[in-house]
């Protein structure tokens, strides 16, 4: 196979992202300038997302065996690039006062984005692994980024080591599973593991199941599904906030897209025991995530635990995809991921905007009376939290609606029951935060989120809130896009 220029056209967003990184690196090499580096990165990501968006409805091609550039992957490319751009905007004021070289951070962010784009376009084990590791590798760096700062705690280091070690274990499991699948099917592309070709005898269903489960576990770790979730709160807490956002949003969504493609293509769900395993993981995740968050005082940890539960919710739709006709459960996954990105970026964004690399305002006490001290931030935060809780008027509700719908269509009653219980528990800790913000302010240090540096961040929050509400009330545009692109998956 010869790779031609025409083949590269669909890869334009990926190329632009790569070019952005290289330009930024070159710029650093010439002269260190924080604003310039950040600017290049943001601009590059913006262009990449615009290009991806513009080609979204025209491209549909397999570029080499490694990457598939269809509407679905382009949708997530856009989502990834935009999110990365927003995170870059949040990062700018956050890192502005770091007493260390700050520019490399944007390199890592750019590279991570490349990895994520590769992942969402991947239908091949090689690209999956490469994308995943590129993403992870950059994240190790981003998580531990302020490690030299005198002001920073030891937490970034601890977080990074935890993430690296555990992630490597998971990678090992994932790779081993992939090897077994390869032994079974003889191809590294995602392909049905059920109908192994006649000429070469299969190695048995048990073999396939073990292989798939190992791959699933490798992915489940990245999605922080229970019982592979334990790193999540520690890593979230220890990371600088923009890195946390990255980890929580792009890290999750890219991985989930891979999982979705993999599960659908391999027809893994035709094994009952795989369904059982995934359902079990979903149930444990929903319950454990919500229960862990219940009385937590650190906002980052709350959101970390809740992300465990949210990924569990998503698994419900994934399981449902086996039972339902049509694309509804794929749409559910897609929409929910989208919603989850919006609200996670928003929620973490609020925390990020008041924090900086010197001091993170992470405790729930810090937000007491925010409603009266800073109504704007409080309103955004409330909106995001309510959306996470799945309350109407927000996009999170539509997402929940999708999940419920696919669950109902598939008849997954036990999972639905767990989903309801989990959401009920979830209400408690989301509202707990909201309630704290409603109380009268405490005396003592407040935080400063004003200043020209923060204009961009506030703009991002406004954008996210608008998205949250508009799509919460009138989701039709997004719904129809997702309906179209989901056809690509099946």
């Amino acid at each position, binding site marked *: 196979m010869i790779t031609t220029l025409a083949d590269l056209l669909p890869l334009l967003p990926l190329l632009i992202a790569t070019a952005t990184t290289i330009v930024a690196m070159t710029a650093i090499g010439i002269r260190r300038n924080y604003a310039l580096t950040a600017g290049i990165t943001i601009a590059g990501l913006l262009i990449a997302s615009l290009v991806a968006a513009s080609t979204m409805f025209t491209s549909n091609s397999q570029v080499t065996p490694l990457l598939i550039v269809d509407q679905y992957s382009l949708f997530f490319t856009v989502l990834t690039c935009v999110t990365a751009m927003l995170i870059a905007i949040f990062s700018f004021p956050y890192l502005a006062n770091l007493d260390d070289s700050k520019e490399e951070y944007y390199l890592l962010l750019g590279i991570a984005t490349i990895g994520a784009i590769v992942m969402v376009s991947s239908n091949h084990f090689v690209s999956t692994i490469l994308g995943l590791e590129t993403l992870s590798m950059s994240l190790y760096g981003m998580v531990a980024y302020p490690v030299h700062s005198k002001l920073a705690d030891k937490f970034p280091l601890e977080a990074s080591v935890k993430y690296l070690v555990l992630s490597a274990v998971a990678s090992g499991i994932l790779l081993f599973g992939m090897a077994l699948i390869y032994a079974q099917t003889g191809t590294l592309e995602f392909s049905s593991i059920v109908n192994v070709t006649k000429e070469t005898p299969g190695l048995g269903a048990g073999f396939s199941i073990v292989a798939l489960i190992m791959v699933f576990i490798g992915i489940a770790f990245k999605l922080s599904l229970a019982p592979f979730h334990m790193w999540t709160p520690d890593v979230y807490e220890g990371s600088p906030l923009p890195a946390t956002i990255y980890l929580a949003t792009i890290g999750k969504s890219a991985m989930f897209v891979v999982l979705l493609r993999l599960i659908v293509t391999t027809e893994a769900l035709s094994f009952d025991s795989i369904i059982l395993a995934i359902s079990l993981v979903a149930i444990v995740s929903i319950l454990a995530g919500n229960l862990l968050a219940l009385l937590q005082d650190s906002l980052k940890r709350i959101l970390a635990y809740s992300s465990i539960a949210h990924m569990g919710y998503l698994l419900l739709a994934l399981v449902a995809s086996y039972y339902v006709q049509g694309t509804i459960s794929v749409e559910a996954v897609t929409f929910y991921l989208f919603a989850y990105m919006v609200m996670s970026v928003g929620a973490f964004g609020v925390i990020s905007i008041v924090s900086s690399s010197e001091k993170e305002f992470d405790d729930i006490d810090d937000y007491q009376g925010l409603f009266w001290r800073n109504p704007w931030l409080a309103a955004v935060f409330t909106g995001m939290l309510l959306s996470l809780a799945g309350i109407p008027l927000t996009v999170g509700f539509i997402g929940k609606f999708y999940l419920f*719908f696919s669950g109902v269509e598939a008849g997954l009653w036990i999972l639905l029951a767990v989903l309801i219980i989990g*959401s*009920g528990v979830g*209400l*408690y800790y989301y*509202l707990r935060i909201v309630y704290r913000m409603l109380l009268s302010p405490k005396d003592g240090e407040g935080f400063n989120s004003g200043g020209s540096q923060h204009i961009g961040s506030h703009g991002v929050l406004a954008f996210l809130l608008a998205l949250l509400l508009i799509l919460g009330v009138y989701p*039709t545009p997004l719904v129809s896009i997702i309906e179209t692109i989901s056809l690509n998956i099946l």
Partner: protein
Amino acid sequence: MILVWLISILFVGGIIAWLSERINPAYPRMIALITVVLDLLLMLSVLGSEPNAGGWIASVNAEWVPRFGISFYLAVDGLSVLLILLTGFLGVIAIGSAWDEIKERVGFFYFNLLWTLAGVLGVFTALDLFLFFFFWEVMLIPMYFIIAIWGHENKNYAAMKFFIFTQVTGMLMLVSILMLAYFHLVQIGNLSFNYHDLLRIEMGNQIEMWVMLGFFVAFTTKLPSVPFHSWLPDAHSQAPTAGSVILAGILLKTGAYGLIRFAVPLFPEASLSFAPIAMTLAAISILYCAKVAFAQTDIKRLIAYTSVSHMGFVTLGIYAWNEQALQGAVMTMLAHGLSAAALFMLAGGLQHRIHTREMPDMGGFWIKVPRMAVVALFFSVAALGMPGLGNFVGEFLALLGAFQANITITVISAFGLILASVYSLWVIQMIFHGEYTGKKIDDSHLTDLNGREMFYFGAMMVGLVWMGMYPQSFLNLSQPVLVELLNNTQSIFAAVVQN
């Protein structure tokens, strides 16, 4: 289109009220009042229109999320109009009760108040089940804020409990709604959340029962009925007066409305076989909560439990499913809306004056606040079902109808009438009768009702007497709707009975 206006006026008014606080803290309440009065006038104008062939007085239907067959479909018939009017009326009253009481963060308060009302109006008018659910949930959030911000000592717990109860059971309802839509997809071939479409859906008995239960649980939690009632006493005792007024007067009614409009008509067969259980729950609610009410010392908790007890008559009436019983349920909803709201306002007024809700600390207040005492007496007596007042008409009709459906349960429920007198008179005794000592309270602000308050209470008294003496003006509105509902289910019932 008028329906869209009805709701959006409140939404917009809420926002304006919020913003206007910056100009002058006195503006929000005025803006809120103007908004609600305007809305009330609009509602009255709905009354003037002639119903169409289907009995719908006004409607609006637009596509919303075509992917799921969801439409923005609002419509009102006589039943909805009654409840809408109740909403408007109590909206005005609630603003009145908040007029002096709310001094902090005024703008945001009225914002929440108006948005709650808007959500409730949405619930009463939505005929697309998704839209219904949407409004069902929308009204909770501002209510949560009202309790959580302006509530009393234990507001966090109360607000949280309120929210989680209604939200979790709401999700059960969502599952049921989706089941319905799914069956529509399977049977008719497309997704639809339209009420009229879903009425035609046939399900197996087993499934219908489960789906019905989803609705039932959500509605009886809101209603509330034993065993889902325990959020109510906490919510009420902690909510500010206006919150209690809206909660008791209107929000509880959404549950009853849901039962009449959705739970039974959508699942006639399941409802028929479930009716004995529902009625038993109603009877338990009536008696059990009356008994618990009697034991309370916190006046608002007491009234809250009595609300549960009274709403038991509504459930009883609905599941008896005949004209008298249904009319009784509707009348009880309206009358209880007024009487419970008034009692909560009195309790709130007392708390505002003496900063306690503990009845053992009170006593002998008649001498200090005779007007308040008379008003309290009136509404207590109304609550215990005195003929000539609205509550009697409702409860009597409900029992009368229920008797034809299930004698044993009705007879047991009727004992609620006795217990109602036990607790109602006990309240009067504890607060207004006895020797006035004033030792346990700071009575420096214990003043009698002022003119504004008397105006509100007077209006509600007139309302109750009107309902009691000439209920026909209300019954006429709901009658065609209920008869239509009965006719629609009659044939199905007949078929079931034959088998």
